[in-house]
């Protein structure tokens, strides 16, 4: 069988759920359940989650999770298309299903139009050496065509690199909390489109999962506030110029609040340009300059132990 089914598949489903739990999402119901759709057919679901979409809609989101554990050699692009089609069909059939809301009233006031496929390639080293095949599969997916006034579904795919990135994020947050003696929260800046005010929460939204930088803030026992940027982009001067501009536009640069930028990527040239980047961030305005530090996040070469403790 292509999928590392059975024990491995079950283990990965639990690990994937644990990761989402650690990022502030709420698991609803058990693992591997059948729910009757609005067409009276049963749909097999790996797990269900909900989370509060704090920045975009300020509405709770219901999410169907599909966990896939595969070897790169067993993966087929055509099969991937089927996964997307299938999870989209599940979202469509469950969002109006009486059975879903009877079993899980927690979803009654949610926007139930989301699905996430978390695919873990168990031969991670092979995957990290060559994952072009997966990018091709993503690009080759054909989606149902747009229809005027059709209600859209959001389907997201997280693969090894995205999953390990989230693991690093969680790991770094815990280290910061220990070192600085604080409880870091994600920082959702105000949005000129929605008019929503700044929001701080331990929950990581799906938009942040797919962003190149994530903002966080925390206050220690002595009342010192720290602002943190988790940066997943390239480590070049121009990239940091753009990052600085972005942070400034979002009102995240404050000369009275120390800033720590955690970088994720590795680049041997980065140390050489670091003084210039520090200067860019801490330039002196009205005799004030920003207190800024650059640190590295630990990068995992496999699933971390905090996901293995099942």
């Amino acid at each position, binding site marked *: 069988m292509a999928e590392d089914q059975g024990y491995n598949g079950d283990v990965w489903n639990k690990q994937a759920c644990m990761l989402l739990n650690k990022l502030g999402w709420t698991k609803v119901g058990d693992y591997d359940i059948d729910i009757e759709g609005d067409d009276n057919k049963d749909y097999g679901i790996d797990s269900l989650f909900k989370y509060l979409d704090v*920045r*975009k809609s300020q509405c709770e989101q219901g999410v169907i999770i599909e966990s896939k554990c595969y070897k790169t050699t067993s993966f087929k692009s055509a099969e991937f298309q089927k996964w*997307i089609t299938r999870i*989209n069909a599940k979202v469509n059939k469950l969002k109006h299903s009486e059975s879903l809301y009877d079993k899980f009233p927690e979803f009654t006031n949610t926007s139930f139009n989301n699905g996430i496929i978390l695919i873990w390639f168990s031969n991670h080293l092979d995957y990290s050496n060559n994952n072009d095949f997966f*990018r091709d599969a*993503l*690009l080759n*997916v054909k*989606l*149902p*065509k*747009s*229809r*005027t006034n*059709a*209600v*859209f*579904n*959001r*389907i*997201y*795919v*997280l*693969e090894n690199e*995205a999953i390990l990135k989230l693991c690093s994020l969680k790991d770094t947050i815990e280290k910061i909390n220990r070192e600085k003696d604080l409880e870091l929260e994600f920082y959702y800046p105000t*949005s*000129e*489109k929605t008019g929503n005010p700044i929001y701080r929460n331990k929950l990581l939204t799906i*938009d*942040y999962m*797919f*962003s*190149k*930088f*994530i903002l966080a803030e925390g206050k220690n026992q002595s009342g010192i506030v720290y602002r943190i940027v988790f*940066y*997943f*982009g*390239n480590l*070049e001067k*121009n*990239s940091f*110029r*753009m*990052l*600085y*501009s*972005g942070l*400034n*536009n979002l009102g995240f640069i404050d000369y009275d609040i120390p800033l720590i930028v955690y970088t994720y990527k590795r680049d041997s040239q980065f140390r050489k340009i670091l003084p210039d980047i520090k200067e860019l961030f801490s330039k002196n305005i009205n005799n004030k300059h920003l207190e800024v530090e650059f640190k590295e996040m630990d990068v995992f070469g496999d699933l971390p132990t905090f996901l293995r403790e099942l």
Partner: protein
Amino acid sequence: MNSNKIYPNSYELEEVIANIANRPFIDSFTQSRGIFITHSEKKTLSQELSNLFFDDYDLEEIRKVAYGHSIKHTLTGFLIKSENSEFDLISFYENIRINETSHRKKGVAISQLIKINSKPGTIEKYKGTIEYERRRVGRIQFLQNEKGSFDFYIHKKDNGIWQVEVDCNKSTDSGEIFNLFDRNINKETQIETIDLDSLTTKSTISFFDALAKEGLGKEWRFVDVKKLTFKRGKDTGKDEDEIEETVEEENLIGISQAILEGKNLRENSFVKQSEAAGYVFTAMTFEYENKETPYSIQVKAEFKGRPKVFEVGISSYISRSGINEEIYNEILTESEDRYYRTLFWDNAKSIYDNFKSK
């Protein structure tokens, strides 16, 4: 700070993605990141994407598409002809590069020419690069300073005659180098392009007809017309005076058949009707197969811009293999791609010279 490093706010991002970027780009940009929004219109996708925080590379990708930079290059060109048989375009260019100041004031940087290594017996070619910065007026700060660059190639065709080939990232690129020469040449020198205005409706059809047969030379056999675009109305410089239409597949079959049978394309009933209704051919995509190898190539020949100048692009390159002749997408190297575009443009120029003002 570099003005190009201004992070757009989410409103700007949404506007640029929804109104300026094209749908195939938005789909691939979204899907390559693992995001799939079903039944979505451009507006929905742009709203979703504008909520993410991007890095410099992502934003540059969006900006390039918004500026109209294409991943696929096209080739256009022109001839510079001088009554003076000693005219040397290489020195002429070098003189402009060193002494002319107006291009610098316009934010255009022109490079020194580099002689390209050529095999013995082949023509000597020189390569140059032009970089430009264009300031755009508009509310979207993210798009205000467009930076672009392109390569061009110069070679001598005959005494006093030089050919300039422009490897365009976007159609307006050729105008940068054309204007550079145009404002510096004297009365005994003239520039010749392939432009639609010099062809009558009748000769435009004959031009495309001949291109189908001779465009890629003797090694390639014409197989099919994959796409044909018509323009109706006069080129007054206003979009509302022009209507472009793409011909349906059923009519393309008849057109391909007429070309394959060596008939005069103007005799085809659909073409006749179109000509009578005041339509002018502006673009055709031809498919050719190699006479000796299992390769096929699709070439798009198009009159584009204002004035409508002829340009050539390679749409696809495929091979067939196995008993079932399965099709594989092949990748041409940069120089092979340019070779076919140049070959096609050269042949187009000869055909054009025959039909010009006939």
